[in-house]
């Protein structure tokens, strides 16, 4: 029987330390650094993930979730690392006004 996609995902509060990438079993290798993301965040290829969960204990910000347990939070995440959105909004607003 074919395996379905995995259930783990990394939310937007990832700080890009990369600890999870190397916890992912070598043959699976489902975690990758997102190209072009200034914050250097990582993501999981759902089709490759085998739901082993080895990445979770390595994360220093608790940003890896099992959608079956936590649900899906649109990748936004919770906690202190979401505060940067306020700074981003402030900066975007300044650019809009300058235009």
């Amino acid at each position, binding site marked *: 029987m074919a395996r379905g996609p995995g259930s783990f995902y990394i939310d937007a509060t990832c700080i890009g330390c990369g*600890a999870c990438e190397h916890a992912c079993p070598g043959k699976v290798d489902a975690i990758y650094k997102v190209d072009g993301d200034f914050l250097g965040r990582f993501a999981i290829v759902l089709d490759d993930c085998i739901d082993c969960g080895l990445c979770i204990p390595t994360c220093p910000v608790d940003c890896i979730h099992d959608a079956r347990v936590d649900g899906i939070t649109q990748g936004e995440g919770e*906690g202190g690392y979401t*505060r940067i959105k306020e700074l981003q909004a402030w*900066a975007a607003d300044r650019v809009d006004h300058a235009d």
Partner: protein
Amino acid sequence: MTTMDNIVPNLSAPPIEGVADTTTAYQQRYKGFYDQWGELLQTNMDRLQAGSFHLGWMDRDGSHWGTKVKPSSRGLTYMDMNRSKAYGTIPEKSEFRNFAPRGSIRDRYADQLPVIDEYDVLERMHVWSDNLETLYEEAKVRQWNSTTDIPWSELKPVSEDLEMATCQLSTFLTEVEFVAGDFPSRWIYRISPDFFEAKNFLVSQMMDEARHMEVFRKRALAGGGGLLHPSPAFEWALKAILESPTHTQGTFLLNVLGEGLVLSIFRAGEFLSKTHVDKEIFRLCMQDEARHVSYGTMELKSYLDAAPNREAALIDMHAFADIGEQVILTALTDPYILEPLAVLMGDGIKNIDDGMEGVTFLWATIVEEYLQRCDRAGFDRRAKCTIPLEYPWSA
């Protein structure tokens, strides 16, 4: 000419005139150990003279001979190595204060091996984190070179006020990077070789910090400005980090709080960079800082989880954090740091008030990110934090 007859050192020889006192002291010290290493030397010489072989190194009793580790698709990592129980069991407390590697046949040599008195960090909980090995792998993959990986020739001139702000920020970051490299160096030497994974990661952190110090020094000069003012307020914070009484406490102050603060600044790098060169510097430094912050957070968690008396450990850490946060706050309120940030955020000195509004958001980010790291480590500082959650700035 050295012969078999005169190979034994003259232990009673008087100090040689002109030799430095430190050398004389060293000579005396090792002559004092002669009954230990001299016996080994004599035995070896006797064997060589007799033309006989020892072959004791082929005795596999007590070894883990037959262990074969298999590389993963990424290569042969420490995670692959440590799947072997014989080699991958990290002791709670190290019994060895010598250089014999974990997994070697070392018990039988315990009486002959020297004791390295300086190896006094012997408990795993003071250095370990659950992501240590994976962070070390990541550190090796993400190394970069500030000489060639920054497009220095593309650095475009900006207005003088923005260049001054960039140079002042670079001066501050150079100061930070010194202590961030020096702190691990103070401890690596003291950590038992049984925890070599921690030593290796800390060496990678030192290399990262050396590169950061290098890149910010270069940035200050590359735009035709130069290094500006050291920050006395921040240097007190750096001193407090360097002189932390334990490795865990210092790692908390450096990586969870100090480097965390710097990580927050780098994460705001998109709004602080006035050129794509600056943006690339922030981006590359940020990925390194993230590893250090990650280690610090999980090391604190590991320490608290393993503490024989968690409540006592928490009381002690809170007392340490009370003063640690205050010295970092001294730095965080310093005009030599905040005002350049405001000038960069506001796009010039004429907009410094506007930029201070951005700094207000940055402050909240710094404090909230710090508190989240503490939460993750099981160290609830929310009710105790002595750094104001909101920026104490009255426009």
